[in-house]
């Protein structure tokens, strides 16, 4: 029995959540530091996971397996492939920044609270850590049921974070703000819960199918994949499609994919900036991750069947999200719609079913997490200074707060995938991967890049450039030390990974190859000299001797 590294990684924030919640009401600052400490410990642990992960080794590594509910065929089974390891690292990386950026987020709630016993500060940080623990288990679970449980359970702390600690900077007044927050929280929960319940039906269906063809029902992903490959696990076409849909709809709501996306702008708009980062950069990644891990592997035929529709919806997401982002007046909703556009790219990459596409999609998940965090957290600092989310209330900020404006620009440029910054690598790979199999889809998606440039640059222009017209902005302080400590590492990471993404792509690629072999797809023979660009990332498409073409 080796050291249960994955369990420890997921348990650290859970223990931290309990410990933070138990801190006495008067010791608010201690609670914050405790939470930060636990999130940093988790980051170290996740770093060890990444370091111990051997890209050339077995498909699932650091595995753990214990009996749990044998009646349901459920085991406590953990294990990571490269995709899971990368996303666990992303989660553990972002949470300290979320905590640091949200250092004062609970203060106002604390003031509003008539009852000291409620301990809002402790609750806020405990809930963040609880979400982290649940997300980490979801990324590590190789048991479908275990995954489902945490996929669903993470909604509850998320719900309280949105509804209870939402953004107080509301144009429509305090009462209306409270209503909006509660509405956003309920909408978030109902959408995701409905998706989760549809998935529950499919999970039960999967159990019935597996117990019918294997004799004993199981939820273990490695076992199911093995049975699937050997032909032991069979299901009728109709059953497979229904089960696929049950899983996919839940993940598409979480991701979110157009037309199931409408909860995201509300949730991100009403949550404070750090919580918005938690939603879009961490929690939503579980949706796209699960598509790769569960939908494609377990239901390959149905995945092929659904591909045209999914690609279509992903394209709509890319363009629709970008177009609506252009039209937003609210900074946070703008970032939310930009995220919808980006999730469109990720899903496009996943369902293009090429190694570049899926590898790019995985990198995209990580890089989008970092770039959105940078943009959104700086936006949050900006909003907290002025007390307004409306773009029109700003202008000329770069004159009074040049560091703030500069980091905001870097985050924005990362969002529009400027070459040299990390997201460019992933977006390019997704487009190449899509183009090599579906040229038309690749071309249409490229329009998303142009729109991204539009919404980011217009946002920057309206808020940061021009003359200072408002007295509130004249007195606006630049980034404080704490804020700088949050943003600077993110910016550095964006630059570093933009130039040198190789370590990450090396970890991710074998997992992508496995997924592709699950869905029995090979990369198409290249007819365009795209692989030259790949060589730049040291990226080797499957089925080739390493770029020895033309």
């Amino acid at each position: 029995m080796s050291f249960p590294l994955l369990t420890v990684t997921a348990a650290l924030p859970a223990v931290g959540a309990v410990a933070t919640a138990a801190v006495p009401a008067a010791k608010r600052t201690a609670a914050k530091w405790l939470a930060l400490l636990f999130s940093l410990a988790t980051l170290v642990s996740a770093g060890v996971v990444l370091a111990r992960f051997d890209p050339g080794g077995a498909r699932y590594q650091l595995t753990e397996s214990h009996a749990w509910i044998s009646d349901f065929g459920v085991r406590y089974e953990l294990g990571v492939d490269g995709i899971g390891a990368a996303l666990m690292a992303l989660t553990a990386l972002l949470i300290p920044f979320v905590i640091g950026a949200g250092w004062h987020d609970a203060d106002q709630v604390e003031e509003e609270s008539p009852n000291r016993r409620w301990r809002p500060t402790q609750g806020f940080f405990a809930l963040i850590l609880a979400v982290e623990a649940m997300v980490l288990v979801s990324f590590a679970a190789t048991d479908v049921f275990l995954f489902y449980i945490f996929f669903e359970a993470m909604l509850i702390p998320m719900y309280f974070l949105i509804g209870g600690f939402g953004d107080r900077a509301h144009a429509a007044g305090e009462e209306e703000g409270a209503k909006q927050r509660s509405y956003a929280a309920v909408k978030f929960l109902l959408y995701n819960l409905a998706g989760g319940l549809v998935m529950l039906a499919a999970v039960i269906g999967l159990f019935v199918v597996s117990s019918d063809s294997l004799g004993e029902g199981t939820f273990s992903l490695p076992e199911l994949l093995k049975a699937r490959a050997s032909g032991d696990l069979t299901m009728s076409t109709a059953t497979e499609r229904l089960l696929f849909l049950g899983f996919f709809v839940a993940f598409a709501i979480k991701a979110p994919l157009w037309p199931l996306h409408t909860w995201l702008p509300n949730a991100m708009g009403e949550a404070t900036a750090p919580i918005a980062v938690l939603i879009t950069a961490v929690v939503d990644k579980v949706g796209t991750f699960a598509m790769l891990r569960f939908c494609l592997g377990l239901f390959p035929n149905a995945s092929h069947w659904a591909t045209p529709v999914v690609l279509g919806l992903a394209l709509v997401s890319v363009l629709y999200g970008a177009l609506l982002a252009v039209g937003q007046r609210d900074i946070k909703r703008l970032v939310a719609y930009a995220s919808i556009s980006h999730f469109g790219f990720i899903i496009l990459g996943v369902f293009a079913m090429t190694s570049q596409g899926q590898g790019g999609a995985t990198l995209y998940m990580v890089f989008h997490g970092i770039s959105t965090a940078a943009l959104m957290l700086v936006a949050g600092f900006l909003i907290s200074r002025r007390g307004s989310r409306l773009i029109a209330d700003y202008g000329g900020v770069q004159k009074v707060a040049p560091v703030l404006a500069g980091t905001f620009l870097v985050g924005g440029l990362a969002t529009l995938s400027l070459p040299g910054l990390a997201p460019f690598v992933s977006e390019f790979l997704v487009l190449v991967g899509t183009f090599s199999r579906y040229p038309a889809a690749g071309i249409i998606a490229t329009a998303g890049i142009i729109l991204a440039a539009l919404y980011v640059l217009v946002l920057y222009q309206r808020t940061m450039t021009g003359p200072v017209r408002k007295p509130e902005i004249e007195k606006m302080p630049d980034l404080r030390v704490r804020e700088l400590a949050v943003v600077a590492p993110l910016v550095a990471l964006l630059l570093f990974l933009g130039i040198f993404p190789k370590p990450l792509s090396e970890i991710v690629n074998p997992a992508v190859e496995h997924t592709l072999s699950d869905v029995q797809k090979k990369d198409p023979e290249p007819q365009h000299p795209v692989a030259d660009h790949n060589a730049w990332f040291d990226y080797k498409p499957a089925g080739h001797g390493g770029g020895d073409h033309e």
Partner: protein
Amino acid sequence: MTGITDLASAGGASGASGVPSLWTLAAGAAGAGDKLQAPSIEYGKLSPVLIVLGAAALGVVIDAFAPRKARYGAQLFVVLAGLAAAFAAVIGLAASGVGSSKAQIAGMGALAIDGPTLFLQGTLLLVGIVGAFTFAERRLEPAAHGSRVDSFAAQPASVPGGEGEREAVKAGWTTTEVFPLLMFAVGGMMLFPAANDLLTLFIALEVFSLPLYLLCALARRRRLLSQEAAVKYFLLGAFSSAFLLFGTALLYGYAGTVNYSGIARVVSGADAVSDPVLADTTGNDALLLIGGALVVMGLLFKVGAVPFHMWTPDVYQGAPTPVTGFMAAATKVAAFGALLRLLYVVLPGLRWDWRPVMWGVAILTMLGGAVVAITQTDIKRLLAYSSIAHAGFLLAGVIATSEDGISSVLFYLGAYSFVTLGAFAVVTLVRDAGGEATHLSKWAGLGRRSPLLAAVFAVFLLAFAGIPLTSGFAGKFAVFKAAAEGGAGALVVVGVIASAIAAFFYLRVIVLMFFSEPQADGPSVAVPSVMTTSAIALGVVVTVVLGVAPQYFLDLAGQAGVFVR
């Protein structure tokens, strides 16, 4: 009870005269001839029921003869000791293998002592103990003249709002007849799922229903509402009892026996009825179908399935809240136990006839309960409709017609009853000047005033909604899994849709508690004694344990999944 004695004496008399009677046939004493045999009773195997009924009788004696001051303590002791002793007896029986290998028909064919019986009796006894805690709570109502009073009427016989009532309230009277009534109800409920012939079923039904009708009428506050609830419950309950009895008569006409396995044998064609008196009616399928339908209808009334659910919201709302909690949990356990035995032992041969009907009932119940609950503004009525929706989920497990179906329903019942008891116990604590503040608007901002209580109630609501890591999810998953394996996949899909609808109104309450501004004249939260506290704490513990580590209890329910025939 007089009706039952009449029946028994009539049966005894006719048995002696040699005409085949219900009782002689029920006892399986076909060869008894003219002589009345002394019945052989397995006292050991029936000891749980006997202990509870004995304690109930003792409670009546105490209420009649003990001085008023000593009654409360004595009653409470008798109730708790009786229930605990009966529970120990159930454990003893289960440990000696009566639940599995040594399962048998006892009481001359009247009762079946097997796995499901013991599991349900154990559950009912625990529910009874927790229920007794909430019944005995005397710290919530403001004290009258220095004496602490409970949730029950000072003098139930007095006219609401009349002179007598005012005097009784002023004097700080309390009544203790609720305890023997509770015990009779528990005893009857324990018999109900054990009943192995239709007459025992009917008697058990009456034994637990009559005390419940009375208990519903005993609220200290809002007495008219409480009495209205009792009358409604009694009238509709009487109808359902009549249906059940009529169905019994028709089934007797069909099979010549009221014994479960006897009827099953006639249904399957293994036995032919040779009774000359019944030559005209035996084997008449119309009798079988109508009789079976009427009996099932009687049971569906008790579980609160649509369209026999009309009484549920009114009774849940009007009854004193401790009674509502006990009734909501225990009646469901008992009635589903009886329904399972009836459908699995008596009517398995008719599966193709009853399954489509039960499909319809289950779908109506799940959707009906969930949809109507959305519009509710009273927390007790909301929980009533939620209980209807849960009855629908349970019916999905019943329809599975497999061992998994039985054990999943047993597990669900155990999980559900503790959540229900806990939730209603929380409702008793939220009070304003008029007693319990059950209107939902009063609950606004409760999370800010008393975060712990609101958090506990939120846990119960999440369990009702079936969120993972709560007992509600484990139960729902077990039931849906059994249904899907039993070929009722469509039912699972409907169940999932109903769950999504139900989640909406549970969440609404959570939103109200945590994200709404507290009202200026909002309710306060009473500080209960250790009894209500432990009832709520037990509810939380069971909810979490069954949610996180359900395997042991699933095993338990799995071992109890076979009916003796």
